[in-house]
């Protein structure tokens, strides 16, 4: 009896052991297979990215020298000249767009997160409006940018008679980046721990003081990320500005002047002229500015979060 039992036990153990082994090697094989697929996918992505940026920057650098950066384009169909005024216009447009979009977007996000969820709001109309604005923000983010351009053209350029100008373009651009700023700010506000809000309220601070002194500073890194993402969006946008900014190659003199951003200039060069190298040069400068903006995001958000955590 005893020995029988023992043999059965040993057999059973052997089976278990075998099962474990085969199971384990199969699992290892599956894992290696999938790792390989993931690696290949990753490498292809990086290669494509490198090929595009590398090609543009390599081609572009043939056209880039100091002269290219500091002379204005000659205009017309010649494709001659540099890009100095387009750099200036891009800068103006970015500043103006952000100046319009940031207060609106951050304000809307504060409203949606801090006030719209307030239990004191009993009016069904208001609740409906809030639900609708959430839906609106989601939808705006998915609309092709040319629609914003057409809308900007219809409203700002013709109806409000701002003409093709920095003003029209920045207003239309603000519509384009508002969803980005609202969403990132909302997420940043929601990430602020409830204990901060309670702590502040319990000290006799008003709701607005709590938002202004505790919630906003704590969510600043997220808000700044949203703003810088929007800067990148404005720098790289063409469709919206094609129909609102006009295309003057001169330096804008006021917010009512027409102008040409780098991306827009690139579009004109590529479509209307044979200045292939100049187009590539402009593209290279564009790519470099986008890379710079991204580095800036990383740097700023890391520094700000470190400061908040108390590690200096």
């Amino acid at each position: 009896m005893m020995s029988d039992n023992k043999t059965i036990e040993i057999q059973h153990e052997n089976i278990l052991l075998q099962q474990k082994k085969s199971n384990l090697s199969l699992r290892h094989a599956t894992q290696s297979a999938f790792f390989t697929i993931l690696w290949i996918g990753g490498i292809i992505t990086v290669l494509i990215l490198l090929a595009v940026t590398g090609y543009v920057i390599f081609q572009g650098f043939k056209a880039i020298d100091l002269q290219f950066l500091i002379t204005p384009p000659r205009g017309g169909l010649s494709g001659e000249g540099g890009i100095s005024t387009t750099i200036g216009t891009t800068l103006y447009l970015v500043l103006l767009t952000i100046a319009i979009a940031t207060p609106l977007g951050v304000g809307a996000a504060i409203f949606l997160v801090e006030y719209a969820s307030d239990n004191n709001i009993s009016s069904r109309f208001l609740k409906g409006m809030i639900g609708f604005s959430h839906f609106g923000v989601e939808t705006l983010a998915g609309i092709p940018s040319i629609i914003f351009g057409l809308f900007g053209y219809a409203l700002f350029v013709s109806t409000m008679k701002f003409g093709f100008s920095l003003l029209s373009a920045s207003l239309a651009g603000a519509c384009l980046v508002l969803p980005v700023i609202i969403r990132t700010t909302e997420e940043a506000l929601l990430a602020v721990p409830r204990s901060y809000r309670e702590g502040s309220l319990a000290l006799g601070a008003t709701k607005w003081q709590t938002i202004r002194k505790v919630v906003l500073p704590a969510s600043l890194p997220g808000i700044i990320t949203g703003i810088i993402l929007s800067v990148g969006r404005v720098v790289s946008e063409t469709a919206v500005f094609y129909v609102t900014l006009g295309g003057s190659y001169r330096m804008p003199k006021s917010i009512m002047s027409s102008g040409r951003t780098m991306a827009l200039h690139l579009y004109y060069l590529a479509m209307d002229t044979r200045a292939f190298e100049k187009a590539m040069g402009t593209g290279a400068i564009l790519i470099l500015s986008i890379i710079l903006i991204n580095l800036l995001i990383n740097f700023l958000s890391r520094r700000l979060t470190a400061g908040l955590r108390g590690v200096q």
Partner: protein
Amino acid sequence: MNNTKLETKNYSMNYGSFRALEDINMQIPEKQVTALIGPSGCGKSTFLRTFNRMNDLIPGVWIEGEVTMEGKDIFEIDVVNLRQQVGMVFQKPNPFPKSIFDNVAYGPRANGLTDRNALAELVEHSLRGAALWDEVKDDLDKSGLALSGGQQQRLCIARALAVEPSVILMDEPASALDPIATLRIEELIRELRENYTIVIVTHNMQQAARVSDFTGFFYTGESRTGKLIEFDLTRNIFTNPADKRTEDYITGRFG
């Protein structure tokens, strides 16, 4: 007998259709430490948060009965004003991501105090009051989050003191701290008792016995509605409880 600082009369609290607290009558004496004990979910924290109207933040809350401070209905007092008089220390230390100085100066600044000297004096006074001054006096610019857990909690106490309240509510102030830090908080509570009315929620029965003058025992049955079973001098509650459930709880038979 001491003056009554806070009082509830037939006080009930509901979240929508759920009754969280029922028919609570309690007189909390001035400049004494009152402990609220009871098993988890019995509503003692909810009850504590009544006095600075923190429950106002929760959607769907409605109350019945009366809650008064020095005879005045607390729901008639402006909530910002009330919270200046009734400070609160939370379970988890929650300093703001600001410097130690700015943490303590937060309340006074919110009240409109801007004079630098007055602020500096008030910050020192409050930090001394919370027995933290000697440890941080050279690091007032350091982030409050860089302190240890026990120091953070004393910073939160200092922050509450800076608003010059007359009542301090403490919601399990030491439950996230190690035994030594806990002991320091308890010593501090005994000191603060001189000048403040303190109401403390605790899960730790020894703590209630050590720091409090009065104890209220909360209990809830199947209904999950919290009730005050017994309220008396701490000494009586722990040596000669009137209710069987109180006795079972303090002797560790449940909860």
